[in-house]
């Protein structure tokens, strides 16, 4: 859920944010004094806050890819349900694939976006270990993909736009998932998403992990948050397979080009959504406001399109992706 005091989130500092540690400590001391009523430290507090902002600006001005990965995976980064509660009204969560189970790693439901009915789907991570276990760390089983497809078809039947919020390390690699057709579930989603007759906008909000992300991410427009990532395999996975050493994830992250900027250059996404200073986890409200604005901006031009135009638009978007010699 959204935090009242966004600054609190900062305390969960990433490795590259360590320079902030000392300044934060100072800020806390100043505040204690202020609150004790012994001295007026408001000027010093203001100044320190400014220093924090400046330092953060500096730190985030040029993140390298592996730092972006850290921000994208930040425990306090807004989750799908955080965004839903901040961007939509009248949310009704719909459960179940009508086949086998309800998968808590995937949430789906109906909502209103500025008064317009939409369907929302997305992977759900947690903000704590307990939540993450309950949500299987945002890694869905086939049931999750089938639930998403069921709800997308519901949207289609009643002509409602679809918003997908993508945030997953990948589809879950386990025995039950294989038994129940993880590959089949994702594959079917890809084909069916291509054929949807309603406007469809996908936003990669955190980790866009391979087929597990793509399985709900075939929007007419695909957007990414500034510090989210999108990749065919995790940097760690790539390093261990191609670089023969899982510790070379940094190198792999660089080589793979996984940032929003890379995606925009390659034509994989249509837009980058600006994050609050220091990353979306620093200000859920502002992050959600930006995401909502971007969704509205990209959804609006799709609304007048016919069924046939929407399918053609989506087909063309993905059809043109690929670089080769001819």
């Amino acid at each position, binding site marked *: 859920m959204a935090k009242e005091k966004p600054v609190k989130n900062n305390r969960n500092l990433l490795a590259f944010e360590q320079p902030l540690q000392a300044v934060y400590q100072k800020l806390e001391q100043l505040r204690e004094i202020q609150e004790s009523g012994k001295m007026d430290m408001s000027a010093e507090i203001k100044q320190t806050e400014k220093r924090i902002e400046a330092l953060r600006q500096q730190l985030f001005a040029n993140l390298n890819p592996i730092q972006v990965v850290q921000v994208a995976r930040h425990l306090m980064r807004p989750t799908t349900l955080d965004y839903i509660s901040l961007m939509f009204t009248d949310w009704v969560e719909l459960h179940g694939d009508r086949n086998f189970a309800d998968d808590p790693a995937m949430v789906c439901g109906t909502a209103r976006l500025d008064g317009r009915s939409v369907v929302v789907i997305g992977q759900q991570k947690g903000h704590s270990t307990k939540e993450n276990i309950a949500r299987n760390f945002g890694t869905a089983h086939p049931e999750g993909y089938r639930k998403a497809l069921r709800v997308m078809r519901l949207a289609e039947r009643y002509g409602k736009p679809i918003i997908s919020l993508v945030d997953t390390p990948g*589809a879950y690699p386990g025995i039950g998932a294989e038994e129940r057709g*993880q590959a089949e579930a994702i*594959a079917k989603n*890809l084909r069916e998403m291509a*054929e949807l007759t309603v406007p469809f906008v996908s936003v990669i909000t955190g980790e866009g992990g391979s087929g597990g992300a793509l399985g709900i991410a075939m929007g007419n427009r695909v957007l990414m948050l500034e510090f989210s990532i999108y990749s065919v395999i995790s940097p760690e996975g790539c390093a261990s397979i191609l670089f023969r050493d899982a510790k070379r994830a940094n190198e792999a992250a660089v080589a793979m080009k996984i940032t929003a900027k890379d995606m925009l250059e390659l034509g994989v996404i249509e837009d980058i959504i600006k994050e609050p200073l220091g990353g979306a986890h620093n200000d859920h409200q502002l992050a959600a406001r930006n995401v909502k604005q971007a969704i509205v901006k990209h959804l609006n031009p799709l609304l007048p399109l016919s069924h046939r135009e929407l399918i053609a638009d989506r087909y063309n978007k993905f059809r043109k992706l690929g670089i080769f010699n001819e």
Partner: protein
Amino acid sequence: MKSIIIASDLSIHDWFKKKKLQRETEYTREKLDIPGNLWVKCYKCAQTLYSKELEANLKVCPKCGYHFKLTSAERIKQLTNGSPFQEIAANLTSKDFLGFTDTKPYAKRIDESIMKTSHKDAIVVGLTRIGEHDVALGAMDFAFMGGSVGSVVGEKIARLIEAAVEKKLPVIIFSSSGGMRMQESIMSLMQMAKSSAALGRLRENGLPYIAVCTDPTTGGTTASFAMLGDINISEPGALICFAGPRVIEQTIKQKLPPGFQRSEFLLAHGMLDIVVERKKLKETLINLLNFFKN
């Protein structure tokens, strides 16, 4: 992440199935290029086989029934009996557009693979005939970078399907692939979307697609075009999965049961329509093509 659940009264059925699946989980590492030797050793039963005899038996071990991998050329030849094969997009080659270097530059890998296999990339697609049926046919080459799917494979599949839509032909694709080609990073992932979207268009046009999974079909390949057949077929004993056995074993920290993720396992779990021996494959395809046609 695992526990025992009391489940499913389908268990008798499962139990029978499982008895049948007493086979090795270990993935058979087949040396792909059988050199000009007169004699070949079977990768499964280790018997020494006379090359010509193996060839005549469609590259299925006459002793144990092990299905050797086929090249695209061999596959096409077995199915078409010399009907002309009008190749599509024959000249496409992969490009190292990211300047991707792991232990070796991707550009160099491409060149070496072309040299080694004399294929341009990991799939051959074109129009041909099987029995009395004109078809759009694709066959992958596992020898080319493990049958990995990059922009070229995705593009060729899309063009094959678009040609099928134009000429109103059924599509058959033989998969044999280790998954997406990581050296093309996100662009390889996008080939899953592209090929699946093309299959959606095929379907909207009322044209059938028969997917044939051969050993091995894994990762993003399985999670896109390889699993999307109106009919999903496989050869016996093929490894077919989303996450590979090693990834799963690492995740769950235990050994997988025998037969896990093999064709027969997928059949029992409802993912395949038919598991068919190579020698009956052509007949089965013709039978299905007849069904769709008449």
